[in-house]
């Protein structure tokens, strides 16, 4: 597929299964990678997972086109803890990004309506899913 060739320029494939491709994308190149996904005509983002592996926070975008699953993993350094929004390109990521930001304490730059979703507004303290 053209998109996969395109993405290989920005990151590398670390796992490939039937109907599934898992990419790891460097933090700097995420914007380009998302852009190429958007240009390829994929409109559906199914989920955004986040995981704190101790050193850095891994954010995984799961894009879906019919039965094809495209997963982009982006490690974010803990001292930075911020990432650009993708809601401008994928409106469906609105709530997913909100949850990611409050559960893992990642600042989403340019999110249309930042704020708490599940947690109380006056919640202070460590983001719950940080290790």
């Amino acid at each position: 597929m053209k998109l996969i060739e395109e993405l290989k320029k920005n990151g590398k494939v670390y796992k490939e299964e039937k109907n599934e491709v898992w990419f790891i994308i460097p933090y700097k190149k995420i914007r380009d990678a998302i852009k190429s996904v958007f240009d390829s005509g994929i409109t559906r983002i199914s989920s955004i997972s986040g995981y704190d592996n101790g050193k850095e926070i891994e954010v995984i975008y799961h894009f879906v086109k019919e039965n094809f699953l495209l997963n982009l993993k982006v490690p974010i350094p803990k001292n930075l803890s911020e990432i650009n929004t993708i809601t401008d390109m994928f409106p469906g990521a609105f709530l997913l990004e909100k949850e990611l930001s409050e559960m893992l304490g990642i600042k989403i730059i340019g999110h249309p309506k930042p704020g708490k979703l599940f947690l109380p507004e006056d919640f202070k303290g460590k983001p719950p899913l940080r290790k």
Partner: protein
Amino acid sequence: MHDMMIPFGPAHPALPEPVYLKLFLDGEEVEDVDFSVGYNHKGIEKALEEMDYFKNVFLSGRICGICSSAHSTCYTLGVEKLLNIEIPDKAKFIRIIVSELERLQSHLLWLGLLGHEMGFDTLFMLAFREREYVLESLELMTGKRVVHDINTIGGVRRDLSHETMIKLVKNLEILEGKIEYFRKLVRKDFLIKKRTLRIGKLDKKDVEELCLVGPVARASGVLYDIRRTDKYLKYDDLNFKIVTQRKGDAFARTLVRVREMIESMRLVRLAIAFIEPGPTRVKPILFFPEKEVISRVEAPRGELIYYIRSNGTDKPARVKIRTPTYANLLSLKKILVGYTLADVPVAVASLDPCLCCTDRVTIVKNGKEKIIKWEDLHDHEHH
């Protein structure tokens, strides 16, 4: 300038779900809507990380009461993918039977609720009466009515005996006529048509953009069904149809769900016919490699996604759940703004929201921002 703000929820007679909608009205017309969720935090994602893989099957089945076996099927499918095991065919068919019966009872419950939202209590009573046959079948098959706990890693926990199959088919025969009756009813009833036609419209573009799933997407003409795309379990062996509609209003969603019930019954019959004697469970090798998997199933409300990540121990490192209602919540603004207050319950119900799934999440706050551990939480919930 808004005339007034009407609070809709979190405890409201229309919706037995803890969602808080702020409706800004001009007279009777809804001008803007704001929603907040999270009244139902159970801390399940965190709890899943603190228990081992086997015990988690029961916990995932308790995320939601209505789509209980969809959750546990999704979880077990994910873990089986992680362990790289193939479950026996019989187990696959039993899982299909339970999840299709569950879809049937969920849609019947939904139909009753839709009737209730428009003040049509007779439809509510009739739908719940017929639902009883489905619950009875599930009770006979799995031992419990609502939380079935039929799945386990490597298969199913209970075999399907011959007598149970006969009883199941008998119940399905009764149900067939009743559901056909509902199909005719919703297509022809004067007031159902008046209250649902042209309410809460979502066109194909909205669905693609907002990533809506399940019957809501299919009612707008988007053919998106995980049973068809992923072919998990044995769905590719069974011949069934995906129901779509083009108009995308509350009426279209009603028709899609009612027609889907008929397809579900067909699937159950087919699955029963396909069952052959054999084992129902394989004993998995308890070695969890460091891996990450994603598993998807079609829950009654749409696509359900589990992301499971293991770190070599007997406990998962991370389980991320994206429930169907969570995806569909985004469409609230589209389906409410511009309609009247009286349409709000009908439009919200036509999404079939299940906030218990949505609010699974991650932390329990104890007044003073103290993070409670899972063990404490268990004692806490009874006080």
